[in-house]
């Protein structure tokens, strides 16, 4: 079931939204306007976008510290995201969460998490709820190659399999956890090789190819909605930028060769997708250019919105601690 034109263009648009959002974030970080930590998603856009394209608004996602791509891919508002990064009251979380904690429950974005792998059990629980409530909502969790080594992943995958939960474990193998190669941290060739240990399908996908990610996810979604349980999808990808903004110390200590970085930059998911969708003639290069131009305007507006949004007031400090 290949995606239709609208969806193909939507995927392109969302990749651009992530890309240009992140470029803007890098800019305002280097100018000093943005002070908090931020982990750019550039290079991995096809993963979140391909995967979320297979979901409905009512489905849930949860993510990690590399946290801007997932909500934008799920359809999250750019202005709220940017305002959150600036700690403004117009942010998704009223400025309380910041970069690593974007969340928008109204469209199933159950939140990014700064503690590596700690949203894996959370997403598993959302899937459990879905089953208990007799709903067909699916839950998807994004986690890295590094995260896969946490016990939380083992425990969650085991429970999800035992209870046939509608959850998709989406591993973004960008090959490094900060500076540590997955070859030195994962004792098998591929994280998806661990799926048989939980009696669930494990799929290895080219994470630079949004359509491939989409198709793999569609299968997993079908399985999950049919009550057949979880799937582990591993997307091979690469982050084009530093682990996080401002972590210059790491840049001085090269853990990735220039050649390797260059090679992967050649596999930029946006041109790959444009090539794929224009080569069939369904979409024209003009369509693509228009998408990009529109997104530039949207991101600029988002930054404008964020800048104009007021900071939270002091009295808000103690608000949002306790639910009524």
């Amino acid at each position, binding site marked *: 079931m290949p995606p239709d034109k609208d969806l193909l263009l939507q995927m392109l648009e969302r990749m651009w939204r992530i890309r240009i959002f992140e470029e803007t974030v890098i800019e305002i970080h280097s100018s000093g306007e943005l002070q908090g930590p931020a982990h750019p998603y550039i290079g991995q856009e096809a993963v979140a976008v391909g995967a979320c394209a297979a979901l409905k608004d009512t489905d849930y996602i949860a993510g990690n510290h590399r946290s801007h791509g997932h909500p934008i891919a799920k359809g999250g508002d750019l202005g709220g995201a940017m305002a959150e990064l600036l700690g403004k009251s117009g942010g998704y*979380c009223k400025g309380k969460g910041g970069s690593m904690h974007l969340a928008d429950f109204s469209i199933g974005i159950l939140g990014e998490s700064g503690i590596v792998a*700690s949203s894996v059990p959370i997403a598993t629980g959302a899937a459990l709820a879905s089953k208990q409530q007799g709903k067909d909502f699916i839950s998807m969790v994004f986690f890295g190659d590094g995260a896969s080594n946490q016990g939380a992943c083992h425990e969650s995958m085991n429970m999800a399999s035992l209870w046939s939960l509608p959850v998709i474990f989406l591993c973004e193998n960008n090959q490094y956890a900060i500076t540590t190669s997955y070859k030195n941290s994962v004792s098998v060739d591929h994280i998806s090789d661990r799926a048989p240990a939980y009696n669930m399908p494990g799929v290895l996908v080219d994470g630079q190819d949004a359509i491939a990610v989409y198709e793999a996810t569609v299968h997993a979604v079908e399985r999950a909605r049919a009550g057949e349980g979880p799937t582990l999808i591993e997307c091979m990808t690469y982050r084009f930028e530093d682990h996080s903004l401002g972590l210059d110390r790491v840049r001085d200590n090269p853990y990735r060769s220039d050649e390797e970085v260059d090679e992967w930059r050649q596999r930029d998911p946006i041109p790959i997708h444009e090539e794929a969708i224009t080569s069939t003639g369904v979409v024209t290069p003009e369509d693509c250019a228009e998408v990009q131009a529109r997104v530039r305007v949207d991101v600029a507006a988002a930054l404008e919105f964020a800048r104009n949004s007021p900071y939270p007031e002091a009295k808000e400090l103690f608000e949002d601690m306790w*639910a009524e």
Partner: protein
Amino acid sequence: MPNMTYMAAIAEATREEMERDESVYLMGEDIRASVYGASAGLFEIFGEDRVIDTPLSENGFFGAAIGSSLVGQRPIVETVTSFFWVGMDQMISQAAKMRYMFGGQAKLPVTWRARMFYARGAAAHHSDRNYNIFMSTPGLKVICPTNPYDAKGLMKTAVRDNNPCLIFEDGIAISSRGEVPANEDLPGGELLVPFGEARIVREGTDCTIVGIAGGVAHAENAAKILEGEGISCEIIDPRTLVPLDKQTILTSVEKTGRLVVVDPAHEVCSVASEISSIVAQEAFWSLQAPIIKVASAQVNVPYSPALEPLVYPTPERVIEAVRETMS
């Protein structure tokens, strides 16, 4: 009024809440078999979607409970205080923080019930009384029922609360029996004990004793004996540590001028320390004597029946402390 055990009260609260609201469900290890005595028969009534025996994966299933609560479920999780350590990341990083981090979008109606073993050779690995640690962490409500009435009433309130609640079931309290009104005898038709309202266990004029968890029973035993010596103790059971009914404690100390805090947890950075520090700051001018903490010795809990009793507060230690404040 029916007289029942503490665990029967917990079981009754659980069943009533599960009947009332179908989003309430039970999760834990061996709960179908009711290993800790609170869930007998529930699997037969509510089925496998609502009475879930989990694998031995505390971090995983605590997290699953939290995740489910984000989208409308109301899990009750059964465990033992010592196993909290295993699931700590989910409890602190997620349960306690998610709502605030997400600017109030999340509701987290998860109730943990944790057994605290007491004496009888539980040894270091099964003797944690870690409520102070959770009290220290913003975002969690902390509940220490010390009798069947409060156990039932606070448990029901916890299940309905939209925040993560931790109920600590102290071994001493668990062995208590007491009267718990039948629902038909209650005005509202059910027993709900509000959070943040301390119970004045006994009124007195000379010295305030605040008892935490199993410490309340020791305070009561001590007060009876001290009464014979002409010392009148006022005993306060805060019942919930978060929220804490500071005012009842301060008012009492303003009256008595003296404070002893009895807390079976380790003494350092304890709830006893906290209450002491509050009073030393806010009721200082009423104090007529040093504030004395009667808490567990700062040592791991030994197994031997010859050593273990030396760790914990006893009525004798409470008596000594009160006498000291009076001298």
